[in-house]
């Protein structure tokens, strides 16, 4: 048997690295679990961004939802050439009472995001080629928002999921391409939002912040000493360092404030988590509730929610017996039985979404309804789960202060970039962003209300 030998050094020396949340958590020390230092929870942008985030004090929010098996495209997309007087498709007909609260898109996708199922990792990031060896993800929409305005609320962002195995998947990624594991239990989300920690937990967090401050004091002191005997240009560099340290200290102090403030009180019972992943639809409903409550109490302004249908078994849906696992069903091959079941599942999705819209509309904040201040992006990474294509993604945007009630139709052959929608959303939040991933501008045809 011939034997060859080769070491790993040399032409193929690896150049790209990243780390898992798991490795990360194991390595995490006391400092890493400080909210603003957790690389998984980047909190801050520049102070100017933060200040301009809520001009006039009108908070804007974002909920990004991805169902990673999507819906049957032929029953989702409206026919025709678009416009305001478009005819609702069978699925959108379920949302008809909210017709003027959403815009539906035809002919959009994330440029170069291919690879079938792994594309769900990129639903909110739009990083190209998720299946490739050199792939590294980039910051997701929700995290970018959290980084910019996260300090205005108790939590910079919430990362939620349904039927995600062990939380090891989500839509949220840091700027260094690290996955943020999701919260999969509604009861735990509820606990984070509304149940106070024990005194020990609160003291512990305060202690961590003190420690962070003591480190910053030490390095700031050194910078000050070093700046004493240097020329003007060098001093300018050290002054900049010093200022950055002071900025961070201020943000730590703000974080400490949050620790002291009591959590909001809501008069709803703690949700009961369904035992089985078969109760998929119930779990979706509960996560929608959690998102709504979080927004109502202004506990966060940015939420991502992955509906991990790929990982779901034969699920319970009212009114029909589902005979096969969700993923298997989606490869329907035009089988009438499978299509009928999928249709029931999709319709249930639409009903739940409609309920969420209705609830947000019935809640008022200032002169607006909560829906007017909440952008809800509902979509999928697959144009059709049957063929795994990642173009022509069924997607809609509801609420948030846009002129809705229209069907925007783009080129179904050469798709219009969906990241443009993200830019429009970021601009709606007045974050001063004019580029996101492969965007080429703002969403053509979508105007602010």
């Amino acid at each position: 048997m011939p034997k060859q030998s080769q070491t790993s050094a040399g032409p193929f020396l690896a150049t790209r690295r990243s780390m898992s949340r798991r490795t990360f958590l194991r390595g995490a020390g006391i400092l890493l679990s400080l909210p603003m230092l957790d690389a998984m929870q980047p909190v801050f942008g520049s102070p100017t961004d933060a200040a301009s985030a809520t001009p006039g004090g009108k908070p804007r929010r974002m909920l990004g939802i991805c169902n990673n098996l999507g819906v049957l495209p032929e029953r989702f997309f409206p026919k025709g050439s678009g416009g305001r007087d478009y005819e609702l498709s069978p699925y959108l007909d379920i949302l008809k009472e909210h017709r003027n609260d959403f815009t539906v898109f035809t002919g959009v996708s994330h440029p170069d995001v291919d690879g079938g199922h792994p594309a769900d990792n990129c639903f909110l990031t739009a990083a190209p080629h998720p299946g490739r060896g050199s792939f590294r993800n980039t910051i997701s929409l929700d995290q970018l928002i959290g980084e910019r305005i996260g300090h205005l609320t108790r939590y910079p962002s919430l990362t939620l999921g349904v039927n995600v195995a062990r939380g090891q998947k989500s839509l949220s990624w840091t700027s260094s391409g690290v996955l943020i594991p999701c919260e999969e239990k509604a009861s735990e989300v509820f606990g984070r939002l509304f149940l106070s920690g024990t005194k020990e937990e609160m003291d512990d967090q305060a202690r961590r912040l003190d420690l962070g401050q003591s480190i910053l004091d030490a390095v700031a002191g050194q910078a000050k000493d070093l700046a004493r005997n240097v020329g003007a240009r060098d001093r300018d560099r050290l002054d900049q360092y010093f200022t950055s340290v002071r900025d961070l200290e201020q943000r730590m102090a703000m974080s400490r404030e949050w620790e002291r403030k009591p959590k909001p009180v809501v008069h709803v019972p703690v949700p009961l988590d369904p035992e089985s992943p078969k109760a998929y639809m119930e779990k979706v409903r509960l996560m929608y509730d959690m998102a709504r409550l979080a927004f109502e109490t202004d506990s966060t302004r940015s939420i991502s929610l992955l509906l991990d249908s790929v990982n779901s078994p034969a699920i319970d849906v009212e009114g029909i017996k589902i005979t096969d696992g969700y993923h298997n069903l989606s490869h329907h091959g035009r089988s009438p039985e499978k299509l009928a079941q999928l249709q029931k599942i999709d319709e249930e999705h639409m009903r739940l979404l409609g309920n969420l819209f209705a609830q947000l509309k019935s809640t008022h904040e200032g002169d607006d309804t909560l829906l007017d201040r909440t952008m809800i992006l509902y979509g999928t990474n697959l144009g059709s789960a049957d063929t795994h294509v990642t173009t022509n993604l069924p997607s809609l945007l509801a609420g948030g202060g846009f002129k809705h009630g229209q069907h925007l139709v783009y080129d179904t052959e050469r798709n219009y970039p969906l990241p443009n929608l993200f830019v429009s959303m970021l601009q709606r939040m007045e974050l001063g962003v004019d580029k996101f991933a492969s965007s080429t501008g703002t969403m053509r045809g979508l105007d602010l209300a």
Partner: protein
Amino acid sequence: MILRAQRHFIAVLSAVTLLTPLANGASPSIDRFVSKNCIDCHDADSKKGDLDLTAFKFDLANTTNFSEWVKVHDRVASGEMPPPKKKECPNAKELQSFTNELSADLTAADRAQVAKEGRATERRLNRYEYEETLRDLLSLPCLAVKEYLPEDTESHGFNKIGDALDVSHVQMARYLSAADFALHQAMAPQSARPETHTNRFYTWSEPEFTDKIDQGGPLNRRTFPLVGYALQTNIMAEENRKMESSKDPQRRDEESMAVVVSSYEPTEIRFSGFHAPVAGRYHLKFHAYSIWMGHGYHAVTPGHRSEPVCIYAETPPRVLRKLGAFDVNPEATVNEMDVDLLAGETIRPDAARLFRSRPPDFNNPLETHEGMPGVAFGWMEVDGPLVDQWPPAGHQLLFGNLPMEDRKETAEPDKPAKSTKRRRARFHALPGVEVLSGDPDRDSEILLRNFMKRAYREPVQEEDVQRFLGVIHSARDSGYSFTDSMIAGYTGVLCSPGFLYLREKPGRLEDRALAERLAYFLWNTEPDAELRELASLGDLHRTSVLRKQTERLLDDPRSRQFVDGFLDYWLDLRLIQGVDPDAELYPEYQLDDLLVESMIGETQLFFQDLVQRNFSVTNLVDSDFAVLNERLAKHYDIANVNGVELRPVRLPAGCVRGGLLTQASILKVTANGTTTSPVKRGVWIMTRLLGKPPPPQPAGVGAVEPDIRGATTIREQLAKHRNQPTCAACHKNIDPAGFALESFDVMGAYRERYRSVGAGEKVKGSGHNGINIHYGWGLPVDCSGELPDGRKFKDVRDLKELLLTDPGQLARNLAQQLTIYATGAPIRFSDRPAIAKILAENRQQGYGVRSLIHEIVESEMFLNK
């Protein structure tokens, strides 16, 4: 008429006013020259070229003013100004005395500035340097913290310029997390030394291989159980199979799982029975052979050729790190590699030449009517972790030999998955350790002093020790353990300016600062013990010592960090993955990781070769060799290069390749994914390779939108633009090189015709992604052109010959690029004599690249702040 009269009147008027000096602070002779020769056009009314010399002070201490006068100097010195059509041109003597005087003034002013503050501004480590420094300091070769930190600002082409390396509170917060993370990575994950095991992982027992036997969808996405070459059809037909490798060792060695696709969703084969239990060194062996899968997937015979296999370390889900590559042959081959793994990583092989089976077509481009190639994997053997000391070196730096005990497991162990089909082993992270101290006050001070001495690259100040001791004490006072308190103190050290900034004082560098400069130049990391020792003895600045050390650093494998870091910016190699080739026009490149990796590798190893073998800078334009493997050779249409390993190959006579210009990586980074632009490539070559950057694009002039329907070529579109005299002035300099490179597509393959998505004869077949080809042939490429001096070329071979006639300019450019990179400061006016000296010496040395590095290190620019 009226207009002309007015202008005449103004000219007379200004001439009159100019009898008195400009009162701008210049010497009378400079003033006279300007008044006489320049002011006609460059006054407040005409303001030609946006320059009004009447309102222009001579205030060389002001940087903007200084650089304007440099422009005046350079335009006059080059003969561009005053324009020859001017009636009373100054004579040569007048010109010479003007430029001499101005040059002397500029140099004096510049030198005064440098004497006061130095050429370079105090700068922090960039993210490359920060990562490499932590790796060395903490003995963690795979530590990945670069991605924690925001991208560094590029200035003068590099990520090394002090004035641009900013710090924000975001950066500060990320430093804290990165340092905290790195320190925990350095600590022993458990108190007991991990045992070294040798284990074999058989593919027949690996669910990621066996689960795919009956995978839905096209058959080519499946895995196929084999014994030798015998296809196990009975196993394939079984329902509810439970596969396990055989107990009989002889048979077990013949069992394998074959694929005819490379590793991509959903056929992502991996040895998930193995997860590296701790970070460290491992020895891997792979048993595999190439096969031929008969048509219809009914029979397997030995492969017709060898197949490249790339090995990746994978952190679920899908975070990949390439470890190496080898070839497997038709007869079973065992390939071995020594690798560093992170805790929890598993191993993924990828038979990289095989296609990625993507919807909707799933067509195998390698399939013939007789069948298709494939690779069979038998087993992987892991020997490790190979531990040479415990606790690891990084831990010892932090905690010496203090006793430790395992931390209690606090995290909930994972619940077993409910699904019965999957039985993948899962990684359980080790709990970490608590270091114990009987005398925490004493121990913490000893450990901290020791750590700071090693982490800081200059003598540690007592007040700094006290600062971080203060952090440690306050942590302990608030109830943190000894271990956590120490880590908090160390985190402070690693985020402090003393660690983050390269500190230099104006004037001649002290030996310590010189050691830093040299190490960050040639290794992108901190000085090692030998450099520190020489610096502390005060020997390093001695020419013979410095030369010897430069040689040593260049000979060390770490010099690869210089090559990669320098090329990432100089040649934009870091941007190569930025835009991908258009799926419709370039199906053969889709999802071809091996091609892209080989392209990057070629340029890195090529430049490394120039450095290591002191080849002439002329090789940048043309060389008689290229660094190739089979994939690249196929891309370049060069025969008889086999195997996956990149190595220097002598090029056949008349080959268009050779030099940087025709390397695929360069042709890629100068194109977008769909079309090439002679303008973009031309500008890039002028700027990066020839050191003659063209003036910036005028405002309001957009780029030409290329047409991929096949009706017109980019050259025809550009012609309209170039024919306008205002445009032609610059474009005659910019475009020629770009025209010659039109012979290469967006990935650097040679072409004689463009591709088109509209008209043209259609091409048949399918791409590397298994999707049918849809493009057709477009118009022919015209790659001829003419240099601004009138010399014509018919293609890139000709162009290279013309460029080779001025090796001095190639050396000048490389010298400047390297100097900026090495000193962290742009080239200034007063650097010109130093550059000239370097070039004169380098010419004596046959323009060798390694010699050039020595000459830079010995230059005044490098030896002074």
